[in-house]
């Protein structure tokens, strides 16, 4: 493991742009190159917010802290700049773009990465797209469908993985990729992610999930528990298994006790 993390989050606080209360209340997290991390937590704990803030969603405002990606401070960067720097967010709810085929969409995204005056080679692109779709066990006609328009939940998530496969990020943020998937779709998606990680062992992945289930298929190096805008516990895969057995109750109790102590101390 290298000494400097590829992604380093320090005391990050953030809120919904036109609201007052922070959702992230001081997140600290380090991801090293090639690691797979999972963040688990109940609804409203702030885990999805974390991925959106990392990708630069304009609906959230950072109120404090720093995020360093490959040694660069990224909080001031636009979402497209972060993407081009190597950050990829697999959306929990992928957005429909009517009338734009997946192929056209990916071509535009890849063209946007090139220097001005450079043209994407369309033959190479087509070959790559077909190879990636084959790897993800997708029908070639899928590329001609309009982005997420009329897709089933499973198709939307597979489309996210296809984009990830085509854009070749350094850091993949996967926001509840397992939600809304049946077991078959979950296996296909997990297999795809694993293959991308095998192919590029330096690919760093941060998975957001409610459930241990996904982690049976994608094995994390580290598991974090997030509660009320903070990471309250970090450990190995055993943390996820413990959660599966005992739920979040012990953390809530611990949290309450800590809060009470803090109140007494002040």
């Amino acid at each position, binding site marked *: 493991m290298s000494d400097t993390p590829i992604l380093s989050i320090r005391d990050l606080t953030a809120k919904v742009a036109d609201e007052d209360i922070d959702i992230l209340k001081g997140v600290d997290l380090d991801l090293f190159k090639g690691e797979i991390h999972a963040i688990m937590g109940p609804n409203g704990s702030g885990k999805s917010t974390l991925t959106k803030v990392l*990708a630069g969603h304009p609906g959230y405002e950072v109120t404090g802290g720093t995020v360093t990606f490959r040694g660069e401070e990224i909080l001031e960067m*636009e979402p497209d700049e972060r993407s081009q720097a190597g950050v990829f967010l697999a*959306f929990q709810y992928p957005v429909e773009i009517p*009338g*734009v085929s997946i192929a056209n969409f990916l*071509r535009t995204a890849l063209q946007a990465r090139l220097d001005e005056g450079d043209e994407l080679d369309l033959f190479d692109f087509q070959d790559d797209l077909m190879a990636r779709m084959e790897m993800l066990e997708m029908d070639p006609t899928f590329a001609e469908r309009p982005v997420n328009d009329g897709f089933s939940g499973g198709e939307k998530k597979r489309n996210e993985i296809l984009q990830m496969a085509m854009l070749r990020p350094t850091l993949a943020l996967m926001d509840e990729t397992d939600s809304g998937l049946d077991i078959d779709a979950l296996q296909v998606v997990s297999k795809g992610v694993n293959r991308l990680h095998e192919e590029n062992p330096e690919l760093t992945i941060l998975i957001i999930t409610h459930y241990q289930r996904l982690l049976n298929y994608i094995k994390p190096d580290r598991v974090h528990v997030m509660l009320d805008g903070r990471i309250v516990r970090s450990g190995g895969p055993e943390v996820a298994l413990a959660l599966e057995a005992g739920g979040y109750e012990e953390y809530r109790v611990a949290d309450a006790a800590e809060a009470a102590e803090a109140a007494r101390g002040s």
Partner: protein
Amino acid sequence: MPQNDTIQDLGLDEYKYHFITEDEPVFRSGRGLNEKVVREISAQKGEPEWMLQSRLKALEIYNAKPMPTWGGDLSKLEEVLDQIYFYVRPQEKMERSWDDVPVNIKETFERLGIPEAEQKVLAGVGAQYESEMVYHSLKKEWDDKGVIFDSIEDGLRNHPELFREYFGKVIPAADNKFSAMNAAVWSGGSFVYIPKGVELDTPLQAYFRVNQEQMGQFERTLIIADEGSKAHYIEGCTAPVYSTESFHSGVIEIIVKPGAHFRYTTIQNWSTNMYNLVTQRAMVHENATMEWLDGNLGSKLTMKYPSCVLVGEGAHGSILSIAYSGDGQHQDTGGKVIHAAPNTTSSIISKSISKGTGRSTYRGLCQVHEGAVNAKSNVECDALLINETSRTDTYPYIEIEEKKSNIGHEATVSKVGDEQLFYLMSRGMSEEEAMALIVRGFIEPIAKLLPLEYAVELNRLIELEMEGSVG
């Protein structure tokens, strides 16, 4: 289709057709519209007496009709009309071959891409420069098939009986103020006749261009698709930018005979000081099909509602229209279908994009006459708003006199959403690229019906127009 070029890549960051070639018109009428001008036009063209009389009568109708008070803002139009030239003729004679076209006119065409179109054997290029056809070629096989694709002047000269039989029958001078104006001063346009049973695979194309400052353009097109024929006519327009107001008022009449299939495609990109008031209508007979595909970009104000009058049993009319309104522009467009026979069907699909202070109005009419049993019509209009200041309105007029008919209407208004933009930007596209992609997706259902080179051109025009939509 190369759709991923950005605006910068294309070098389209200024108005593409803003260039003026220096040429001296052979003849130019005085400013404004009066009997003298009308007589001069007719004399210059060496027309038969009946046409002169028809023009003069139309002028009377024009003078008697009040300026419309509905639709767009025409309050300053009178002043504009007093200042414009109603007729300019650039050359004495119609050119038959490309080599004979004068160099400066050729330059203009080259910059518009006409030679490429020719090289690609896009068949009959009828290019209109200023008020008249100067270049016009027709594939030999069409000649062999008896297809007529001429300037409107030659149509009158060479096919007087056919011309007289149909001229002004679909759109009489008295239809509206601007059809009357056109009937008085028309100049340029196409005359097309497709004989019985003849099917054309390659589209007939005409390229229009207004060049002379403050020159009105009053093209008149008359098309007759005879029984069982099938053809596609394409008209593209562009105009250079001028500082003063300009005016265009065309009339397009189409007769689609029993069992025939005709499609008329227009992509117009007038400069943003242009008043563009056009009347276009097709008379659709038994089991015939008429399709209007109408793209409106540019102009200060466009009022244009392609119409299908379904007069024969089983006739079908289809109108696809797309409008783009940028800052200060108003596109008042849509379509009209009139069901006057049983078992007639129609559909109108209209898509508009409004950016900045642009305003798009859908204005449509669906009329079902008594006795037009089992008439079916479906109207769908979708508006996309780019900015908070953009505006759209919908005026769907529906008049049903027949109980046994089925009429559907759907309208949607959408805004380019923050989530859509974020999604695309999170894949590495700039906000501008993301916006352009969303707009292209919005117009895709119409763009895909265009021949490839027009679809590419439309996409490029939209990209150009989308520039500066951000921030």
